[in-house]
């Protein structure tokens, strides 16, 4: 059984309730079409479960297949330094079909980033290291493709439709951590 290593911590981008009975972690790649398809479903789940859920997103860019994946991940981290990780995350997935360096720049403007600071941050090697650390944690946790989900730190191996994931989340909510 594959377990999330490390557990959700202060290095993560987290939404929802820190003391929620169930947690969902997604390892994603901003240019992966399967992640793009999963995005609206994950957003619905986050909205519907509200305070009953803690959701975190970690990077798993498959750069050879998806040449913009790493840049997009770094751009989201740079936005995160201005407390706008999630708006950038949403912008990227909602415009996945036209990802490019210019588009990332445009997204930054649209979500209201300080663009001078953004430019400094995307060139900070620490952000690439953060993305690489996410990737390595994914590999060590048994991620074998994207998206991969963990529910209460256990890899979810079921179907990627909303009903299946919701059912698994509800089950963990009632039984607590296993």
């Amino acid at each position, binding site marked *: 059984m594959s377990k999330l290593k490390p557990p959700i911590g202060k290095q993560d981008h987290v939404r929802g309730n820190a003391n929620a009975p169930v947690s969902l972690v997604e390892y994603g790649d901003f240019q992966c079409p399967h992640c793009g398809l999963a995005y609206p479903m994950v957003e619905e789940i986050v909205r519907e479960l509200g305070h009953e859920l803690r959701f975190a997103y970690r990077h798993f*860019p498959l750069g050879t297949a998806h040449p913009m994946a790493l840049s997009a991940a770094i751009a989201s981290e740079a936005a995160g330094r201005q407390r706008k990780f999630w708006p950038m995350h949403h912008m990227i997935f909602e415009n996945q079909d036209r990802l490019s360096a210019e588009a990332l720049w445009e997204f930054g403007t649209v979500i209201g980033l300080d663009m001078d600071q953004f430019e400094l941050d995307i060139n900070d090697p620490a952000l690439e290291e953060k993305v690489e650390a996410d*990737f390595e944690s994914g590999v060590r946790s048994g991620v074998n493709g994207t998206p991969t989900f963990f529910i209460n730190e256990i890899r979810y191996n079921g179907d990627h439709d909303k009903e299946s994931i919701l059912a698994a989340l509800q089950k963990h909510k009632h039984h607590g951590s296993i």
Partner: protein
Amino acid sequence: MLPIGSAAPDFRLYSTPDQQYSIQDFSGRNLILAFYPADWSPVCGDQMSLYNEMLQLFRKQNAVLLGISVDSKWCHQAYTQSRNLHFPLLADFEPKGAVAKAYGAYDQKEGQCERALYVLDDSGIIRWHHLSPPSVNPGADGILDALGKINSKR
């Protein structure tokens, strides 16, 4: 599959039309042998593409990765270029599947390699192995754990 602690059988296989590899070429390095059913699996994030992203992590563990399937050297060459892979794929092509058979990793019915992983230490001794169903990408957590254990013993 071959038992843990046994010496890995050597082989000499083509990776490209003018390059061959054997285990001896990698002495002093840990070796990951990834037997897989076929080139051109139709998904992104397939096993070989995933491993291609991990070469740096393997290198940090003094390890070299070799993929092995029954596809020909010409097929491997095209696949490697298409997916931009940066590690050798070996052609267990003639006699077909002979190396996979020696490693107990040949699917006789389908006529292709099983999805099987071996980790050898720098002396060519088998330290870990894993067999997955053909459709399941085993990821790399087991490989990294095994390499960590090998390297912590020295």
